[in-house]
């Protein structure tokens, strides 16, 4: 299929290291090392034990650097028509050198801050930090140890290229699984307790936090085995299998996965304790909002940076209608989801959200892209400032907000803010409705109209799509979902303040949508679970409560990384993945042909080969039909 067989491939010698690349990634490693140390991360995260007596999260925050950069330094692009470079010594050398450069840079940094006092500006950069980072040996000697550490870990990183895909996955998962499970201690502990398996837990986890050495070894072994078996493509394969399903099979899959997810949602909160439930409730709340924003940004393609405004509108509507401390209007309704009084509150939330959606939507409907983003950004701030201003104090309580928002009820069950479990169930119900609604919309005429609108507004217009109404509809649906989230939020927290509705909330919801996968409902679910579950919301803690002060840094880093390496998101809609990675797709197909003839092992290969064939045909046809184009 490719016309490369006749050309003599160029074989690069096994020891030929790309020097520029190695130096580049080595220096980058030194920079990242120093940056992480400079923001005091290793010291702050030292509290979090990963493996008892061996490893803390503080150390992990540094140790990943040489592994990852060693891997990058040894990475070699395989070019079509050229023989792939031989694996072996060159990968190890590249990793070693890059790691050593990184370690050297870091050592110099440590020696520098030990000799020059810069604490007037950088408070953290002092002898204490040096002491903590030099293995207790003092500046020059201990700092130089980093060169060795960097080199050794760099070899591991570079060495990842040497083994097969399965070995690599085994190695990576042997490292990742213990790390992940150590951080999920809260949840694991509660589950084992509920199942009366405390003795297993005590064996795996240390009493004062972190895994025991035995636990770490067991988890590493499980991780290695799972990684080896799946070859690191388990999720991709499941997704591709899912994408290839049709008709009755697809329906069966949907039903089975829906039942599993439903069972998890019902059972999990019962197994885990208060803190984990708090996290679950937060995840659910942000998921609800992210689903709403996904309709606006992902489906209709309008960048809304003021989404928090609708969240605030829902929260304040509920507060005014139910709280006894609401300054002027005090209907003191009870938010019972099964009585007319509760429906009145929900109706009001919907009504006010729709009104807010129309108020923002109508003036900005003719704007596109950047302008839309800026105007919505402004609107979000206007709402926050308005509800906190003195002028509206008689209505919203100004900066003091509205307190003592009563619990809501579901029939006879009282949903208390202090009991996150009940709140989680309510959130789950609303999120379930939101998922159903967005799924139905996506696969309807409206979803198609949104897709067209996102692609080319004026052509969509000329096809008869009522662009104004469609945009408003997206805005309004997004507003309603955020309004519901606000309603539950006000009940959960029991009070609302203007500060709770800062710009940051909008940004974090947007990051969830982008990282999860724009326009992908499952992606948004994954994004909310990963980001909010692990890092936490703007003010709410996640599983990694220790990283609280670095939360925004991590959000930013994740966003940048995703934009560069996986712009389609963690769990993209099939269409977006196709859009963004067609070239890699083709290259993979070519590599597989090189490796193993034409046997297509799974759908992955078949799809890729199909794409390759299509491309080949296209090129031919272009040559035949359009010599001038």
């Amino acid at each position, binding site marked *: 299929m490719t016309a490369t067989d006749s050309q003599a491939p160029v074989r690069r010698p096994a020891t030929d290291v790309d020097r520029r690349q190695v130096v580049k990634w080595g220096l980058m490693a030194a920079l990242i090392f120093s940056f992480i140390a400079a923001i005091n991360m290793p010291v702050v995260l030292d509290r979090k034990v990963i493996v008892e007596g061996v490893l803390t999260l503080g150390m992990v925050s540094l140790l990943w650097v040489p592994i990852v950069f060693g891997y990058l330094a040894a990475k070699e692009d395989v070019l079509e028509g050229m023989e792939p470079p031989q694996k072996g010594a060159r990968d190890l050398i590249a990793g070693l050198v890059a790691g050593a450069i990184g370690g050297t840079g870091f050592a110099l940094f440590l020696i520098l801050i030990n000799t020059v006092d810069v604490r007037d500006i950088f408070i953290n950069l002092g002898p204490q930090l040096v002491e903590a980072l030099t293995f207790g040996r003092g500046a020059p000697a201990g700092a130089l140890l980093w060169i060795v550490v960097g080199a050794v870990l760099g070899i591991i990183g570079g060495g990842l290229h040497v083994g097969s895909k399965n070995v690599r996955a085994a190695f990576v998962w042997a490292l990742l699984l213990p790390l992940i499970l150590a951080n999920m201690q809260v949840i694991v502990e509660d589950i084992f307790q509920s199942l009366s398996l405390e003795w297993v837990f005590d064996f795996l986890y240390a009493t004062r936090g972190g895994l025991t050495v035995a636990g770490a070894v067991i988890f590493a072994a499980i991780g290695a085995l799972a990684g080896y078996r799946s070859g690191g493509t388990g999720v991709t394969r499941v997704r591709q299998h899912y994408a290839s399903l049709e008709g009755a099979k697809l329906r069966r899959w949907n039903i089975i996965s829906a039942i599993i997810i439903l069972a998890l949602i019902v059972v999990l909160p019962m197994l885990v304790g208060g803190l984990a439930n708090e996290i679950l409730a937060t995840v659910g709340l942000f998921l609800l909002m992210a689903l709403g924003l996904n309709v606006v940004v992902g489906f209709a393609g309008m960048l809304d940076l003021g989404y928090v405004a609708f969240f605030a509108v829902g929260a304040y509507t509920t507060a005014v209608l139910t709280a006894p401390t609401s300054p002027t209007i005090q209907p003191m309704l009870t938010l019972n989801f099964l009585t007319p009084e509760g429906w009145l509150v929900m109706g009001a939330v919907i009504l006010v959200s729709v009104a807010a959606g129309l108020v923002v939507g109508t003036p900005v409907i003719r704007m596109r892209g950047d302008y839309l983003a800026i105007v919505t950004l402004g609107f979000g701030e206007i709402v926050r400032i308005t509800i906190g201003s003195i002028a509206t104090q008689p209505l919203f309580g100004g900066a003091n907000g509205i307190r003592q928002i009563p619990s809501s009820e579901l029939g006879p069950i009282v949903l208390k803010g202090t009991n996150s479990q009940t709140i989680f169930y309510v959130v789950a119900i609303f999120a379930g409705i939101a998922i159903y609604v967005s799924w139905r919309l996506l696969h309807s*005429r409206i979803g*198609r*109209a949104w*897709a*067209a609108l996102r*692609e*080319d507004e*004026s*052509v*969509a*217009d*000329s*096809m*008869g*799509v*009522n662009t104004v109404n469609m945009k408003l509809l997206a805005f309004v649906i997004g507003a309603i979902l955020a309004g519901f989230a606000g309603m539950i939020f006000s009940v959960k927290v029991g009070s609302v303040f203007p500060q709770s509705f800062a710009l940051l909330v909008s940004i974090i919801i947007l990051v969830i949508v982008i990282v999860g996968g724009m326009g992908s409902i499952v992606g948004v679910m994954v994004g909310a679970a990963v980001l909010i579950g692990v890092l936490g919301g703007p003010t709410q803690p996640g599983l990694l409560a220790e990283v609280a002060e670095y939360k925004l840094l991590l959000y930013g880093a994740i966003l940048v990384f995703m934009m560069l390496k996986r712009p389609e998101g963690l769990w993209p809609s099939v*269409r977006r993945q*196709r*859009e963004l990675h*067609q070239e890699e797709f083709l290259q993979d197909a070519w590599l597989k042909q090189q490796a193993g003839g034409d046997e297509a092992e799974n759908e992955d290969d078949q799809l890729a080969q199909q794409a390759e064939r*299509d*491309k080949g045909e*296209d090129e031919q*046809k*272009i040559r035949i*039909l*359009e*010599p*001038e*184009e």
Partner: protein
Amino acid sequence: MSDATPALEFKGVNTHYGPVHVLKDVDLVIYPGELVCLLGGNASGKTTTLKTILGMAMPSSGEVLLDGSVITGHSTTDIVSRGISMVPENRRLFTRMTVKENLEIGAYLRDPDDDLEPEYEHIFDMFPRIKERLGQKAGTLSGGEQQMVAVGRALMAKPKVLLMDEPSMGLAPLLVQQNFDIIKQINEEGVTVFVVEQNANMALSIADRGYVLQTGQIVLSGTADSLLANEDLRRAYLGEVE
């Protein structure tokens, strides 16, 4: 023929973009089943004419009539649903959607319960290639195939009047010829076609009648043959120098 109700008619239409006077007192008549072309150079108001028909540009005076009833001031959605569809300039497919999805959008305004199979069959008959490429991203198609999809997309709406904006633009000569053959074929199947085009020779070779637009004014009109024979037109548009 002149007794019949025109399929499309401009009565003294003036259109402004802001203060700029683009269409000046334009009168046009297109009878059902006709293939009429509108010729003109750059910035002569050709695309504006189409936008005025679709309600995407509002005339400042005058009326546009479809089947004898005024559509001036109606929304684009309403006008399109009355049976006008357009193949835009440069094709303008939704490049990141599949060919199938592009076609579906074409039928956007039709009753959701309508059976679209006949239209698909019709389009696949006309362009067998499209059938092979239904699942492919429209942006990965070649220029010629994109033109086929663009025409197919417009036909999905089962239009009474088909508007074509510069169908020859950006295509190789061989494909331009094919494209005009297709336009002729669609017209012969009973669809009224209004082609806006710079390539006067090509357009007049298939058209029944033509209008010539110059800086927003109709300066010449007549049957295709008479226009082809017209000295002024030959000089201005067919590149003939005495």
